[in-house]
């Protein structure tokens, strides 16, 4: 039994086509659950339905084992950070943060204590007397966060709460939110379109596209075993390299350009003569040694990230990127050997886009990580 249970939930605005379709989902108590998806995929809509701000068009929603389809927001005992902050423009930061506690007539001393703690944590102590219009975008966002945090409701919904912060502050807040969630044992539903945020924060991630669940799972599973092409390209940065491929005479031909002979231990007979799309992560294409299977490719772009180097090259119509550890002084136009191995590849059905076979190598990797 999950803390939040959704059974076949769907949503349509003005009785037109569905924005969300057949959402079946369980979120456990104390879980940090992340919703990711591209813009317009229905993340906010789903969150607002959990909050009770949006009518549920079909299906059942349960929170702690009670059906709540009909309950107004205030009876669902949750807090929320809105995508557009929804700060009260006429109230100071302090009044904004305490609005909810005040409405619930909480004890004045408790209010002050919580206010101080929260302001401290969000770095707002200096700004308490200001009005929202006198704050920067990031400061406003932190007020919105503080307002949700201060209520200490057991369920917290956040709609892209860090989108306006700079990289350093964002990294900081990621840790703060995560710590707070663990300390208070909050159940968190966290919307983001930033897959790094999703990977680093979530206990589990749900990928949503066009109102349909693409995959639900732990971050590593989504990374290693993307259940379809959408998830494969959405999770991970740089995105997974894809190429059309066919398997013929024990050779894998990618985009009619790369030919990779199969190694003995890989068993792929079942894929013979199918229309495939293969996917390979950037870090699985290292600089080739002599004793390895290598492909010679021409570099079309180099990006230096400091500790690693991104090298792009063309494979047929696709642009692939390899990630090499360290600083490589290669130039655009150089021909370099790249090790591309079948055991690192995920295989997808070209027609449906679904995963047929995951990379065999990942099992070994997991052992290494322990």
């Amino acid at each position, binding site marked *: 039994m999950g803390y939040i249970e959704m059974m076949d939930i769907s949503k349509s605005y003005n009785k037109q086509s569905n924005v969300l379709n057949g959402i079946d989902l369980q979120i456990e108590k104390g879980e940090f659950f992340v919703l990711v998806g591209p813009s317009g995929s229905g993340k906010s809509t789903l969150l607002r339905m959990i909050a*009770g*701000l949006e009518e549920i068009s079909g299906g059942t929603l349960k929170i702690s084992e009670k059906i709540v389809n009909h309950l107004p927001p205030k009876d669902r005992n949750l807090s*929320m950070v809105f995508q557009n902050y*929804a700060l*009260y423009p*006429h109230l100071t930061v302090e009044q904004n943060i305490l*609005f*909810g506690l005040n*409405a619930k007539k909480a004890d004045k001393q408790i209010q002050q204590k919580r206010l101080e703690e929260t302001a401290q944590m969000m770095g707002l102590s200096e700004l308490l007397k200001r009005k929202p*219009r006198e704050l920067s975008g990031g400061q406003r966002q932190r007020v919105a966060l503080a307002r949700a945090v201060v209520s200490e409701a057991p369920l917290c919904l956040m709609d892209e709460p860090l989108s306006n912060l700079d990289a350093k502050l964002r990294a900081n807040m990621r840790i703060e939110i995560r710590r707070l969630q663990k300390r208070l044992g909050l159940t968190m539903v966290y919307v983001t379109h930033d897959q790094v945020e999703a990977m680093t924060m979530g206990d589990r991630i749900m990928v949503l596209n066009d109102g349909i669940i693409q995959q639900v799972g732990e971050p590593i599973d989504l990374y290693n075993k993307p259940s379809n092409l959408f998830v494969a390209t959405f999770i991970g940065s740089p995105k997974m390299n894809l190429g059309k491929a066919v398997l013929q005479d024990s050779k894998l031909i990618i985009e009619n350009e790369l030919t990779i002979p199969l190694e003995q231990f890989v068993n792929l007979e079942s894929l013979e003569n199918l229309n495939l799309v293969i996917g390979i992560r950037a870090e699985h294409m290292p600089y080739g040694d002599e004793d390895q299977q290598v492909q010679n490719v021409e570099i079309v772009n180099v990006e230096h990230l400091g500790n690693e180097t991104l090298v792009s090259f063309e494979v047929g119509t696709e642009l692939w990127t390899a990630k090499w550890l360290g600083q490589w002084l290669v130039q655009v136009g150089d021909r370099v050997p790249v090790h591309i191995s079948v055991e690192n590849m995920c295989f997808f059905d070209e027609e449906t886009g679904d995963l047929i076979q995951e990379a065999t190598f990942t099992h070994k990797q997991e052992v290494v990580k322990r």
Partner: protein
Amino acid sequence: MSMSNPVPASSTDFNEINFENVKKKQKVMSFTKGMLFLLPSIVLFGAFLFYPLFKTMYLSFFLTNARGETTVFVGLQNYIDMFASPIFHQSMKSTFLFVLYTVPTTIIIALLLAVLANEKLKGIGFFRTIFSSTMGISVAAASVFWLYMFHPSIGFINQILGFLGVESIGWLTDPKWALIAVAVTTIWMNLGFTFLVLLGGLQSIDSYLYESADIDGAGYFYKLRRITIPMISPTLFFVITVTIINAFQTFGQIDILTQGGPQNSTNLIVYSIYREAFTNYQFGTASAQAIVLFIIILIMTIIQFKLGERKVHYQ
């Protein structure tokens, strides 16, 4: 700049540009442009507002003949006479009472209706139309309508009173009731406009604010007090200012309903000015009264703005 480095001609030009000068020129340009845009309204205001205002001030220091031409310069005598006159005192008292009766009532009723009409209910559009409908009715039509409502024998109001067993009231003929009757008419007439403006103010409040308050568990009246009222305070402020000015300037309904009577009880200041000027042909006295009215409204408005600045929240 070192001499050994030959500098191209264009670059020297660049260095010689005097930024202060250019800025000054730009300022003059933008001032001229602004003035050009303002010109039409300056001309109109001048012809129809400022000229009459100064002419009125000028007239208030003279006695005039029946055609409004100045005859004798009397200095402040018009003002002195006016402040000594019991009729003027009565007129001032009635005016302030009238403002007191109409302004708060209009605004409270309009606000209530607007809050009701702002709820998302089925068929609310019908009520919005009804509530704002008095806006489309002219003063004359409304006054005639209320003239019948207040009619001593066949009037609707007295009929209801009779039905309830209450003695009928001479609404427009009893000095105790006449001002109230005119106030009721005025409230009814102003309700449409006030309602519409307030409803507009309510609708411009971001719905996210209420959603956030809902999640926080705020009740209906808490939201009304902490969100709705502060958020429409600029609108409310505008409406209060306009309603007060309107109340001071009431004329049409008095002319039709009571002609200032009975016993001068509804002789509000504008009607009094009108009577001085066009019945008694005392343009000097009328002008003096007009100037007093102008000063009263000016002071009221200044006070409101001073108070408003502190209380009103602008986005």
